[in-house]
Structures are given as C-alpha cells and as structure tokens.
C-alpha cells in the first residue's frame, strides 16, 4: 500500500503540512437564527463547544449591516483565536481584516482574490466535481468546500455528491477538503472517514437546542473519524 500513496491520495496521503489550520468543525452562520438568538451568541457557543473555523455568510443582509455584524464576529473570533472567513465578498474580508474568504462560482476567481488579499490569507472555493477541485487547486485555493454531501434544508437546489463524490474529490487534490450539507453528529464520522479534513455545518449548530453541546458532540465524532483515519496511515 505504501508505495502506491501519491500526494493527495486522500485518507492517509500526505497533507499540506504548512497549513496549520484546523478545519475540523467549520461553522457557517445561517441567514436567520432561531428565536431571539444573535449570531454573536451562537458563534460564541459554537467556539466554546469546539468549532475551529467561523464563516460569516448572509446572502440577504445589506452591506452596512454585514459590516457591523462582521466587526462583532471579528472581535470575538480574534479573542478566541479562531479564524474568521467571509463568504463571497473579498472586499468585506479586506475591510474586516478577516482571515480569509470563501468563494462560490459567481464570485471572483481565487487568483484575483489572492491578488487583492495578499499571500497570508485563506482562500476557499466551493466545488462539486473532481474537475472543479483540480481547477481550484491550480488557481491557488487553500482549501475546498465540497458538497452537497447529504440532502439538506439549507440549500434546495444543490446536487448531492454523496460520500463517494466527496471521497473522489479528497483523493484528487492535495488540499484540505471540508464536506458540506446535511452533516450532523450522526454522519460526521463518515464524512471524515471519506477523507475530509472537516465538516461544515449550519443548521446542526445554529438550530440546536444547546449549541455548545451540539458542537461538542460533532467535535467528538470528528475526532473519532480522524483517529480511524490516522490508523490507516502508512507508518
């Protein structure tokens, strides 16, 4: 087995060593929180429970309100030592001095985001296929968000790639891959076992009765998956 390991061969394959980032539990803010909860409260509880990356994502919010919310989350994540990633908007990432930006197909390509943000920032890209994953790697993305892994209520019209699709993407690139969509404590371990460096969640945390507890339950499943994954690694 050892001789067949290629760079980026997925679970057990060499990982990008220079990236000390922990993508294990990647929390994305919902468009609307449940009840009276504020984004700040949910993010704080998510971090307390073990979230390792926070993404600010609000497609419908005005720029000025997004800036205000972003400033509050920037202050919080900086204090807690957790990276803050901004969805879609490179200019907002720049204005907030965020740690990075996550780009979809309709956003600026990664190479341009890099030019604007500089070399030290994290650039993520959404992918659905192996081809898109390779393209994103060529364009200089630091990590990939791959999905939809499972059906979800958050995004209605996304194609389901399943664990098999995720596994193929993880094997095709030498970048950390975060699985997204429909992930909960019940299936997080499978996502990690498919080769993902982490899981991205919205509803599983945002709408949990106890956010901190839900994050801890997810984190536990993720580490269980990673233990198994390391067990397969060549010695």
């Amino acid at each position, binding site marked *: 087995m050892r001789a067949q390991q290629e760079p980026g061969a997925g679970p057990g394959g060499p990982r990008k060593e220079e990236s000390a980032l922990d993508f294990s539990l990647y929390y994305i803010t919902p468009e609307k929180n449940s009840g009276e909860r504020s984004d700040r409260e949910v993010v704080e509880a998510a971090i307390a429970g073990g979230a390792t990356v926070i993404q600010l994502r609000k497609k419908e919010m*005005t*720029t*000025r309100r997004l*800036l205000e919310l972003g400033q509050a989350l920037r202050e919080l994540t900086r204090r807690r030592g957790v990276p803050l990633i901004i969805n*879609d*908007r*490179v*200019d*907002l990432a*720049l*204005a907030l*001095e965020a740690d990075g930006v996550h780009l979809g*197909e*309709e*956003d*600026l*390509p990664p190479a*341009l*985001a890099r*030019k*604007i*943000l*500089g070399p030290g920032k994290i650039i993520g890209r959404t992918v659905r296929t192996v081809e898109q994953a390779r393209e994103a790697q060529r364009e200089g993305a630091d990590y990939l968000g791959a999905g939809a892994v499972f059906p979800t209520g958050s995004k209605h019209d996304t194609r389901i790639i399943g664990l098999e699709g995720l596994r193929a993407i993880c094997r095709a690139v030498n970048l950390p891959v975060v699985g997204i969509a429909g992930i909960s404590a019940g299936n997080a371990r499978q996502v990690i076992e498919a080769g993902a460096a982490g899981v991205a969640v919205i509803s599983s945390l945002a709408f949990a009765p106890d956010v901190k507890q839900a994050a801890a339950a997810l984190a536990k499943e993720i580490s269980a998956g990673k233990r198994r994954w390391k067990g397969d690694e060549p010695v």
Partner: protein
Amino acid sequence: MERGAGAVMMKIWLVTNRLLCPGDFLKTVAEACRGGLEAVILREKDLSPAALYELARKVKSITDTHGVKLLISNSVEVASAVECDGVHLGREALPLEAIRGKLCYRGRVGVSVHDPSAARTAEEKGADYLLAGHIFPTSSKPGLPPGGLELLESIREVSSLPLLAIGGITPEKVPALCRQELEGIAVMSYIMQSPEPYRAVRELIQAQGK
C-alpha cells in the same frame, strides 16, 4: 466675474446601466468614449462579482483605448481586481472609512451624496470627489423629489471637493449647471438610451458654449 470663453468646461462622466441600452452595450460605451467622455462609472447592480469582473475587463479595454478613466460602482473587489482608476461608493457600498488604507491599489474614491451633511462627512473621511444628486427629475429615481440647483449650492458651501452633478441631465439643462463650478456632470439615461451615444456626448459638451 464674467464667465467668458475661457470658462472651464465641465467634464462628462457616463454612469452605465446596460439594461437601458437599446443597442449593444459595449458599442454604446465605445461610441460615448469617442464623443469625449472624461470617465465611465460602471454601475451594473444586478451582476455577480464574477460577471461584473468579466464585463469590467471588456469595458476597461475600451476606456483605455480612448484614454477615458474607469471607475466601478460599489464593488471594491472588482475595482481592485481590474485595477481601474477608482471606485464609486453609493448607498449599497462599504463605507469609505472601512476601505481607506486597506486597498491593494491606489484609485480615486468617490461618494454619492444627497445632502450637505453627507458631503461634509465624506470630505472628512477622505473622499476624492462627490457626486451629488439627483438634481433634476429622472426616471431612474421615480417618486423621489429632485434636489435642484440648491442642492449643489448647499454642498458647495460646506465642501471644496471636486463636485459632479447627476440626475436628469440633458443638453437643455447644461447651461444652468455651467454656473455651478462643477468638476463635471454625470449622465446615465441621456447617453445610454440614445440611439447615437456619440452625438449625445457631443451635445452635452457643445451645450456648454451656449
């Protein structure tokens, strides 16, 4: 003082809206540039960043050819990506103080203002120019009362920044604007909707001699 033949001409800026354009958008921009524009503000609010970036590249090759400046409305990221001459911040944009000193390129930053207090604030925060409007009634702002020439006068009292007027400007309105010490006039509909954009720009320039 009489404003004679030596009076400084107002520069013509085109603010785009490709949805108003009866013909080919890029051809319209090129014809307007040829007519003698100073600058183009690319303002296409409905486009995604990726699509706006692609369009901005095409427009920039046209403006570069004609020696016309290009600014991008609202999208600081696209302005940075194409490294054009600046960014114009409207109501929907990031505020000036949020981007000052953080941009990876040095372009002009202009701000839309609708009253003197906004003009004063923009100047304090380091705006390079002001775009005041809307001055005359315009179909782009239905239902909103125009500020009239009084708006320009009241802004002049509080700010010495280069000032451009926008909103409902046609050649007939130009002589009145000539007395306002403006850097220029910004025009959308009269140029974008014209079947002859070259001639529309010439008319706006020639109306200043009348």
